[in-house]
């Protein structure tokens, strides 16, 4: 009996605590609104995230195709019309190794486009994560982003970073173009 008495008395107080600490109607409605906004934002973000990778892949594929077909175009426009290279008739053992190298060298270009199109929200720390992994490849991009952050205002630095990275991607593909041309000569 001695042990039960204070506990039953507390039970009333516990019930008091249960009744008095509750969400107000307004708080509940505000919280629901915030929750639904958060869900909608997340859904939109997922859609954008799915799209931006396609942009990077499309740009890379287009440039690769252009580079591969460029020798044929050049020959055609110069009027020789005899030797077709690139994806043309002379695709042989000699062109296979440069072709594989070309595909390999296009990876850094693709990563550049990936960062150029990747959404950046609220100073997101995961912005420079590469497909979810921290890799040494990202070091250069971390450095570029850091420089941009130091030199430009908070509203501009991401855009400038994107421009730099996009140009870097184009440079990579230009170098691949030069390499492909020289290998086929």
């Amino acid at each position, binding site marked *: 009996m001695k042990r039960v*008495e*204070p*506990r039953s*008395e*507390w*039970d009333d*107080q*516990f*019930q*008091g*605590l*249960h009744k*008095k*600490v*509750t*969400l107000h109607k307004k*708080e*509940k409605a505000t*919280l*629901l609104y*915030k*929750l*639904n906004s*958060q*869900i909608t934002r*997340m*859904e939109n973000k997922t859609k954008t995230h799915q799209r931006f990778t396609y942009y990077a892949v499309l740009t890379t594929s287009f440039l690769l195709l252009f580079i591969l077909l460029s020798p044929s175009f050049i020959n055609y426009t110069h009027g020789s019309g005899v030797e077709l290279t690139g994806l043309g008739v002379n695709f042989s053992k000699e062109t296979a190794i440069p072709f594989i190298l070309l595909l390999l060298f296009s990876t850094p270009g693709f990563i550049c486009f990936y960062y150029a199109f990747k959404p950046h929200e609220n100073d997101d720390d995961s912005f420079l994560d590469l497909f979810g992994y921290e890799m040494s490849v990202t070091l250069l991009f971390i450095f570029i982003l850091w420089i941009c952050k130091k030199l430009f205002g908070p509203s501009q630095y991401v855009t400038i970073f994107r421009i730099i990275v996009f140009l870097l991607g184009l440079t990579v593909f230009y170098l691949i173009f030069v390499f492909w041309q020289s290998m086929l000569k």
Partner: protein
Amino acid sequence: MNNDMNKHKINAWYDEYSNDIHQYISYMINDHFHALDLTQDTFFRAYLNITSFHGEKPKAWLYCIARNLTIDYIRKENSKKLIIKKLIPNKITLRTPEQIATLNESEHELYVSLQKLKRNYRDVIILRKIQELSIEEAASILGWSKSKVKTNLQRGLQSLKKQMEEGGYLHETSGT
């Protein structure tokens, strides 16, 4: 289409359980405003992981999510408190809003003593005594056996009594 269905489900659960979840978090962390954030996070996390929920008791599942979030929050806060504690020793800060002002003296004393308890004891007292959940429900939320819930509740109440004695409250409430 599936997303809409999940959203409706979360909204329905929110209507039904948000008060309980918020109350549980409020008592666990003693901070009304952060409790609001954590309540929102609980339902958001539930939405993100709704495909992994196949049970029939969403309440227990939501409580589990809320508990995990609360534990994470307490761990983060504890590291901050280590520094603050040296500057303001033994000071309980009641940061909950006007609701605390509506508590009568004995409820307030109980509330203060409750905040000083070990997390496990506080957990089980909040679920069993304040929220009046059954032993089975509390056991499934806490991931304990029924006997562990009973034992911890008993020890928690003893510890609460001790806290109230130390605080000089018990002679008024129990009449000892």
